[in-house]
């Protein structure tokens, strides 16, 4: 496994970002801007699922509004996160926060595609689905921020 991470770090993309003074913060800025959008989409969707906001609108219609933005910003997050990872893959390998983030990202994504989506499309509110989804996504963000401190 460590060999694979070392290989990642030695890819041309990883090397180019490490050699540049400004590439890392610029890519990270894109990552942060997408964080705002994905955070907003996740929050709006789950607040509706909780029944705390826009209760006059069917849950399915809020899903239809937010899902394209969630999907789009998710793609930007991955596309910008990948080069950041390549530039410091070995550090990530040894970072507990990194492994937490990746595990929670996988679970949060699957949970959104299955449970959140299912309840939303049936237009059924569910407190526990919404709270679990919010907790998972918040965990991804918090663990992600912590990679920088580890």
């Amino acid at each position, binding site marked *: 496994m460590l060999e694979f991470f070392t290989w990642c770090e030695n890819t041309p993309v990883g090397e180019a970002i490490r050699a540049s003074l400004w590439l890392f913060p610029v890519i990270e800025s894109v990552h942060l801007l997408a*964080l705002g959008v994905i955070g907003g989409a996740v929050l709006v969707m789950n607040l509706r699922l909780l029944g705390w906001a826009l209760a006059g609108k069917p849950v399915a219609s809020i899903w239809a509004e937010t899902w394209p933005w969630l999907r789009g910003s998710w793609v930007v997050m991955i596309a910008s996160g990948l080069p950041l990872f390549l530039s410091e893959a070995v550090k990530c390998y040894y970072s507990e926060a990194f492994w937490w983030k990746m595990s929670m990202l996988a679970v949060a994504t699957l949970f959104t595609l299955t449970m959140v989506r299912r309840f939303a499309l049936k237009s059924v509110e569910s407190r526990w689905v919404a709270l679990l989804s919010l907790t998972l996504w918040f965990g991804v963000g918090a663990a992600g921020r912590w990679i920088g401190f580890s």
Partner: protein
Amino acid sequence: MVEGAGSDRLRGLLEFCQWLAETPGSVALHESIYAYPVVESVHVLTLCVFLGLAVMIDLRLMGVMFRGTRLTELSRAFGPWLLGGFVVMVVTGALLFYAIPVKTYLNVFFRIKVVLLVLAGLNALTFHLTIDRRRVEWEMDLVPPRRARMAGALSLVFWAGIVVAGRMIAYNWFDKPI
């Protein structure tokens, strides 16, 4: 350098920051192992609440998202969250400045961020004082009038700039020397 009253005032600001840096609270926060990163994490993650919801409302103003939902309905639903998020952003942001006052004051990205924050505020104020006054006339429209779309687009541009400038404060490439 321009001499005179203006530069005296800037000198005063710098001296204020130097005084602030020596207060016990600032030193403690600066030297803390956990408090500073925790405050910074809260500042960054509150982006999801404040910026995320502001983006959704800006997109409604631009006629891109929530076309079938009235602006009044959106602001009633998300107003308290936006306000709460804004307060957390300001408090944690002030603490981050308080921890490292002199370097931050001299940092060019911090200055750009302050200017953009003022512009974002003026944009919101202009919107509320002009086209928003006639909101009842247009809020059922799928696509709001040009002035409202403009306010939404400008808000997105300013806030994106604020995020990027904020991230760059960590770098001292163009710092002004004392």
